[in-house]
């Protein structure tokens, strides 16, 4: 089975043990769990579980082959006379940078946020796509 065949188009199989994406810092401080990447031939898809965040509090930026996702989640503010029985959910800011094995077409990045899950589609830059060379024969 070609586990990551489309990904390794420009990388040798010897590098397979290493994740193709670098993790700069955990998404963790906000107690918000993490992400996964999926790849297609010329697209990468990053999904992240980010429950309870306003879409306007999420920020996605793309430079070259790196995509940075950042945001914050507000904690519930308790009113006078209210007290916690338990508090397990996190709040605060988080940031995460994901490096892809190709350059990203920044203008064509799209994202949707549904049911607390963010899905970012990162298309490969046109000039970064492999060119097929026609061979002429006489």
């Amino acid at each position, binding site marked *: 089975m070609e*586990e*990551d*065949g*489309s*990904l390794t188009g420009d990388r040798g199989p010897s590098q397979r043990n290493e*994740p*193709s*994406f670098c993790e700069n810092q*955990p*998404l*963790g401080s906000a*107690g*918000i*769990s*993490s*992400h*996964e*990447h*999926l*790849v*297609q*031939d010329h*697209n*990468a*898809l990053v*999904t992240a*579980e*980010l*429950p*309870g*965040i*306003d879409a306007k509090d999420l920020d996605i930026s793309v430079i070259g082959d790196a995509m940075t996702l950042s945001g914050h989640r507000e904690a*519930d503010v*308790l*009113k006078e*006379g*209210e*007290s*916690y*029985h*338990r*508090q*397990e*959910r*996190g709040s605060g800011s988080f940031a995460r940078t994901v490096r892809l094995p190709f350059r990203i077409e920044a203008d064509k990045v799209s994202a949707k*946020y549904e*049911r*607390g*899950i963010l*899905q970012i589609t990162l298309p490969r830059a046109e000039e970064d796509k492999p060119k097929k060379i026609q061979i002429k024969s006489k």
Partner: protein
Amino acid sequence: MANTDVEKREAQSPSGTERTRSRRVYSPRVDIYEAKDAIMLVADMPGVDEKTVDITLEKNVLTITGAVEPDALEGYQLAYNEYGTGDYQRSFTVSDEIDRDRIMATVKNGVLRLTLPKSEKVKAKKITVRAE
């Protein structure tokens, strides 16, 4: 590990029982706080919406469950992953003072909010004694 505390926790099933579906089940993280007239429960359940979340109160056990259907992403292959996708389940025992008929629940952006109103104190009944 730096991010151990943000990892999803798998739910414990009562000993000796198994679920019929062989899906992973996670225990959602919750905040529970008490106000003057209600107990509020907030649970992080990314992937559920109002149609797939289920709340039951049987005797004094409150159970929240959520079903998550994995997105079918055709043509994509998983390259890297940090979280599992599965259902949610968690149970709490609640005191008898909850007014069962007025429990309210909302789901927004994968967060379940449950309001468990406290029942009005059992009103002291006055018994009138009639003279025969």
